[in-house]
């Protein structure tokens, strides 16, 4: 579904991603773990071109992702950010319906009905007329997930979705993500939640120094890591 060939990204002299090649298949849940500054977020942001790769090619459904088709590609790739990035001047409902109406030219009534349905799924149907400032962090992130889902994406990208949350709110967001995974959504998740990665992922990438140092099933990575860097990282975080 997503094919990455020789992806390299540098900011000036600073090489953040080094020659990464990967293939993420449909219905797969990939968790990307690793120390800060290892390039996890940059890797994720290259997938929908929020960062322009310095070298290499990325394909979605065998279509090369380029500047010229980026808006169509992004419609198929939902993204959830660490800092939610909800639109503060719009109500929860408008946050969710804006892109379907403006980008997909969806009918407003239809978009609103779907938005309410998505809000019900994330447990926030009573918040549709609220504004982002009136929500807790966990609620904001759940709205952000609903907003991304409203475009009916094929893939969901999560960039440390629980890192900005108070500990007691992490669970409610992970619960929504778990639900998505169970229902077959293809997901790429940059996360520090090792428990979630172990339990929800099909595959785990361990990234360090711009490389995917090691990858495998959660069992392989968490119970029997081969790479010294992986072992040392896991011994610190587990």
């Amino acid at each position, binding site marked *: 579904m997503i094919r990455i060939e020789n992806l390299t990204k540098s900011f000036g002299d600073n090489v953040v991603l080094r020659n990464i090649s990967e293939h993420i298949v449909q219905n797969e849940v990939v968790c990307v773990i690793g120390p800060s500054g290892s390039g996890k977020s940059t890797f994720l942001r290259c997938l*929908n071109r*929020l960062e322009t790769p310095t070298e290499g090619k990325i394909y979605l459904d065998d279509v090369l992702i380029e500047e010229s088709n980026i*808006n*169509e590609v*992004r*419609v198929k*790739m*939902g*993204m959830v*950010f660490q*800092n939610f*990035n*909800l*639109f*503060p*001047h719009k*109500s929860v409902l408008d946050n969710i319906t*804006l*892109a379907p109406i*403006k*980008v*997909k030219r969806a009918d407003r009534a239809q978009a609103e009905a779907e938005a309410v349905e998505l809000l019900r799924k994330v447990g926030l149907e009573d918040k549709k007329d609220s*504004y*982002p*400032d*009136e929500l807790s962090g966990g609620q904001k992130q759940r709205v*952000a997930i609903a*907003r*991304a889902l409203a*475009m009916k994406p094929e893939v969901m990208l999560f960039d440390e979705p629980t890192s900005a949350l108070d500990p007691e709110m992490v669970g409610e967001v992970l619960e929504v993500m778990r639900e998505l995974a169970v229902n077959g959504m293809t997901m790429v998740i940059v996360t520090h939640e090792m428990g979630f990665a172990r339990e929800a992922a099909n595959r785990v990438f361990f990234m360090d120094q711009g490389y995917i140092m090691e990858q495998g099933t959660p069992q392989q990575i968490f119970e029997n890591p081969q790479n010294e860097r992986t072992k040392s990282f896991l011994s610190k975080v587990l």
Partner: protein
Amino acid sequence: MEGFLGVLAPYGEGIVIALHGIGMTLGVTAGAIILGMIIGLIMALGKLSKFKIARWPASVYVEIIRGTPLFVQVLILAYGVPYLVNTISEGAVRFNWQPLYLVGILACGFNSGAYLAEIIRSGIQAVDHGQTEAARSLGMTNGQNMRYIVLPQALKIILPAMANEFVTLIKETSILSYVGIVEITREGVLWASRDFETFPAYIGVAVVYLCLTIPLSRVVAYLEKRMGSSGPSMKKRKAGM
């Protein structure tokens, strides 16, 4: 008592006479604001463009306008431009500004546009970049992102600065009296030279300007205070949320 009122009477007359110009002052200001907003938005987007071809003219425009006095700009437009047109056409076109207040709207609009460009640019830059990333990640184009996400938030941020610019603009239109546009100041000047009530005439002019600018300044102060509390929607707050 009668003597006291007698002393005050010319001031009252000065105010009344200055008031005759209020329609022209407000009309020119309103026209200039609309023109200035359009120019300001275009120039702000130009300055923020990733294309040099758009950045460069916008920067030059803002530099030239902000680097020269409004008075000189008014002179160039009111007298220089008609002279230029008549000279180039060798008298075939007899160009003069008709109606004259067009000069005022254009000069003040061009001028204000440069200042508003800087205000709007700073507002756009003050909007968190995460907003743009969220909008673009949903497949919105650059234009849709600006229109639906960035500009509405930028506008809220710059509202006080913009209102302030309008207060300044009201006062600056007084310069137009020099080229014969009969606004508040010009009414006072004309009366002073007719009846030699020089002091009451200009006091009257000043009072009328104050009547316009003080309420507007109050609005600016209110907006600034509201900005500080950065709440969600005002409607909601009023509804007791």
